[in-house]
């Protein structure tokens, strides 16, 4: 595997671990999903990362899982609809997860800032990220399966 590709894969692993830990911090007690679990793709939360490593992270939920998560955050019953307030709550989830990711990137010696989250929902969504390696991990959580994704441009290797 070429060095740059190996570095990108390592970085993606760091990011996916941080995102998984962030789900735990949100009270979702996540663990890697069993083989064969279908990846949910009805609600997609995306957050941009800028700095030494730039790109995006994503979280994908089934609709019911996303609604349950909003209910969990509110310490209340899940809302029935993905209205503006529910989407705002999911955006905050993206913000929190991206914050954990940025912290881990900082610990790796990389400057990283997070952007404003974007929430996209609908049936049969499909995410294509041209010209950038995209890594994903499917985790099982208290609100059902969550698909985590990351695509970061790796920093240029420093000549020694």
């Amino acid at each position: 595997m070429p060095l740059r590709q190996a570095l990108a894969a390592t970085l993606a692993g760091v990011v996916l671990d941080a995102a998984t830990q962030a789900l735990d911090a949100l009270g979702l007690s996540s663990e890697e999903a069993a083989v064969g679990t279908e990846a949910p793709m009805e609600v997609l939360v995306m957050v941009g990362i800028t700095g030494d490593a730039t790109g995006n992270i994503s979280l994908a939920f089934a609709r019911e899982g996303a609604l349950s998560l909003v209910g969990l955050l509110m310490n209340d019953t899940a809302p029935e609809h993905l209205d503006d307030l529910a989407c705002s709550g999911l955006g905050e989830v993206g913000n929190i997860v991206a914050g954990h990711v940025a912290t881990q990137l900082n610990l790796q010696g990389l400057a990283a800032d997070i952007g404003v989250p974007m929430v996209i929902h609908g049936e049969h969504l499909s995410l294509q990220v041209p010209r950038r390696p995209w890594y994903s991990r499917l985790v099982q959580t208290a609100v059902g399966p969550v698909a985590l994704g990351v695509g970061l441009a790796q920093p240029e290797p420093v000549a020694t």
Partner: protein
Amino acid sequence: MKLLVVDDAAFMRMMLRNALVRGGHEVVEASNGEEALRAYAEHRPDLVTMDITMPGEDGVSVMKSLRERYPDARFVMCSAMGQQHLVVDALANGAIDFVVKPFKPERILEAVAKAEAMVAKAS
């Protein structure tokens, strides 16, 4: 206390409002820097809770603008992890405390109590 909650996310404003009102505080809201400047001038809150990542002007810049006009203004920053340099910048520029998201209602009330103690000491 009277608090101004500045956050672009309606969800976070609602969560903060619920926690603060339950804690016996009065709350006004703003969803960006421009609204925050207007709301501060109109309501003169005792404390501002300020989100850091917002579209347009970020929370630290808004805090600096407000402090230029109102040197006595008091701030608690609310941020996701991973924005350490902004948090450090905010604390260096006079923020009383910062609360990391996700937070429990008790944590935000603790930060408000800290501000209340400072106000009492100053007066």
